[in-house]
């Protein structure tokens, strides 16, 4: 039996591990090796350059520019998404209060949840291409709608305006993520016993107070996890930016993923691109550690 068990463990564990080691672990390890070379990627020739790439990285203001954009995404995107998510979820779950049963969801909340979730099931490629067309100055829906309702003066060349382009991309990220968190937070809220809300009602707590003092603390764990996942989305951002703006205008929407990609596949500098990857690995880890630290807070036990 012991022998059989060993064999069983091996047959079950080895194939996934091999696959994983080959395609996931080894590339991450190799990033370190490539990062110390000046390899161009168009010929097999490469030279060891040590930490030159890292040194170059610190002086590369394009990298810093991209990082700054990622940093803004990292702070703003999760906050806006979570706030909107909580807001809509609480509307749906406890929006129609003071029924005989006390606190309940608004009418049609199932329909809202159905619809809000749409962007979540769409490919980032579809979302990107769609919004690129949405923002087009003359043929896009946004300006078209503004003009149709007589607000033509608000029409902008959205993605062509360096002060707006970045926020336009950020808005798309929020747009595509909010629905998921409405459903996630909504599910969380449903597990909060109604009598807690009703007690708060009796105490005369308002809508905002209920959300801040009751719902949020009870959902804190979920919010925290949401933040970590959104942070990972924010650190990436590559696909949307590449499709919608290609980093423009004038690199104002550049993000680190796009920088890495175009350094490698556009400028044929694979060694340097790997160095960017290495730096990002550590940055990602720091953000994750930091996120867990910052969100540390005693959970309310029910």
């Amino acid at each position, binding site marked *: 039996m012991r022998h059989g068990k060993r064999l069983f463990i091996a047959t079950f564990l080895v194939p996934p591990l091999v696959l994983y080691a080959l395609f996931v672990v080894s590339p991450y390890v190799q990033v370190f090796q490539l990062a110390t070379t000046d390899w161009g990627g168009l010929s097999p020739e490469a030279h060891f350059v040590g930490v030159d790439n890292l040194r170059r990285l610190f002086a590369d203001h394009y990298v810093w520019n991209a990082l700054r954009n990622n940093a803004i995404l990292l702070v703003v995107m999760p906050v806006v998404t979570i706030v909107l998510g909580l807001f809509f979820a609480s509307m749906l779950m406890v929006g129609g209060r003071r029924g005989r049963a006390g606190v309940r969801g608004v009418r049609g909340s199932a329909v809202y949840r159905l619809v809000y979730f749409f962007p979540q099931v769409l490919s980032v490629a579809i979302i990107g291409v769609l919004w690129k067309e949405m923002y087009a*100055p003359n043929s896009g829906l946004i300006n078209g709608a503004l003009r149709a309702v007589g607000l033509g003066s608000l029409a902008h060349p959205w993605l*062509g305006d360096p002060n707006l382009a970045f926020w336009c991309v950020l808005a798309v990220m929020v747009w595509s993520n909010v629905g998921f968190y409405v459903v996630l937070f909504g599910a969380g809220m449903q597990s909060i016993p109604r009598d807690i809300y009703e007690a708060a009602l009796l105490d005369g707590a308002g809508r905002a107070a209920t959300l801040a003092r009751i719902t949020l603390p009870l959902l804190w764990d979920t919010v925290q996890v949401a933040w970590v996942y959104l942070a990972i989305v924010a650190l990436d951002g590559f696909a949307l930016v590449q499709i919608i703006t290609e980093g*423009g205008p*004038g690199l104002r929407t550049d993000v680190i993923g796009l920088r890495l990609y175009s350094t490698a596949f556009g400028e044929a500098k694979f060694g340097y691109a790997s160095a960017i990857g290495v730096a990002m690995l550590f940055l990602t880890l720091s953000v994750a550690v930091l996120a867990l630290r910052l969100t540390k807070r005693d959970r309310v036990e029910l």
Partner: protein
Amino acid sequence: MSAPSASDSSVSRRDLLQRATAAGVLAATGGGVLSACAMGGGGGNDKAAGGAKNSANPLGVSESAPLEVVIFNGGFGEEYAKAHEAMYKERYPKAEVKHSATIEISKTLQPRFVDGSPPDVVNNSGGNQIDFNGLVSQGALSDLAPLLDAPSLDDPKKTVRQTLLPGALLPGTYDGKTMALNYTYTAYGIWYSGKLLADRGWQYPKTWDEMIALCRQIKAAGLAPWTYQGKHPRYMSWPILSAAAKLAGPDILVAIDNLEPNAWKHDAIKTAAEAYYQLAVDGYILPGSEGMDHIQSQTEWCRGNAVFISCGSWLENEQKAVAPAGFQMAVAPTPSLTKGDKLPFEAMRGTSGEPFIVPSKAKNVPGGLEYLRVMLSRKGAADFTKRVSSLTAVQGAEEGLTLPPGLQSATKVMKASGDKTFNWVYNSYYRKLERTLVDAACGDLMTKRINPAQFVEQCQRGADEIARDSSIKKYKRT
């Protein structure tokens, strides 16, 4: 049936994230076990045996060696290449010719370059072309000298080099070696609808003052005088550099190409930038232009919503589905900035484009060169011009063909420009300088976020940055 209970998972979730982070740290720092070299590759030395070189076969093509051609499937499509391939096949019936076309040249071919098994001929063009600086400095391309010194297919007394338009080899020549053959010939100027101007009784302006005066008239008539390819604002760097070169002479362009210190800060460039900046300041640009890509802005222009646009002579082909009948597309040189311009009004930028390369690791290098020789024959060139309405680098190949209006106009102004035609190549030496840095500066200038002084400053900063970057190989020209 059960699943993880609520308390179970909520307790462990945070824990797990923590431990996962720790595992990530371990994996990221402690690695090294699995480090297998990615840079392997390098096979593919099984070159096709060359044929004997003689006067009938100056490049030593093996008759039966297969030939593989990869075409950039952009504005010109791929049909022209099939015609060239048929001509090659006619000469070498035993050779198998493989054809493919893609809009993503870089993604398609990068792996094959690393692998050492690239195709024999590549049209390395388009937004996703492979960076030439990288290709040349990493030794990935064949020197085209044997082709250029071979007799042309039409006249054995002339070498291929002698059949080309003057200056056609300049882009694609790196430190004296021609590594890419730019096949098309493009006039860069200001485009307008001949019909629109005639209907309104307007004249294309020869000086900048006249241009501004006309713009005022156009605006009063309720049209936008200008539009530009807002998402690719580098299109506006072309008239600016052209106007500057006409003002101070083409030497300033050599200085730019050679990344000489303060080349961009030359007064002429600032003067030219001021002129085009004026368009933005006076509100002569179609609102919303900065948010449009090239198709969108060119379509606005075709629809008569804007009168002038800067572009190269591929414009006619690009817009052929949209341009209304009787549009009479026409191109003109940039208006002279002053009366004392070093070059006459007629002078304009003409350059070859659409770079074809023969990779050094290609299996059939002689065949690749021979294919280019076929393309450069009068028959090959005339066929190309007929199919895609573009001139080629071959002298006089368009003679006797009926050209569409835009191309007729381009041919006419190029003839008038004659030996005053000028060009710059910094964009093919240092792709990023034009595509990213100058591009951004033009975007800022045309939307009035920076003034002309800041514009030349910003371009110069970009050039200095390239000059300082030791990882980019530098080229000089005279």
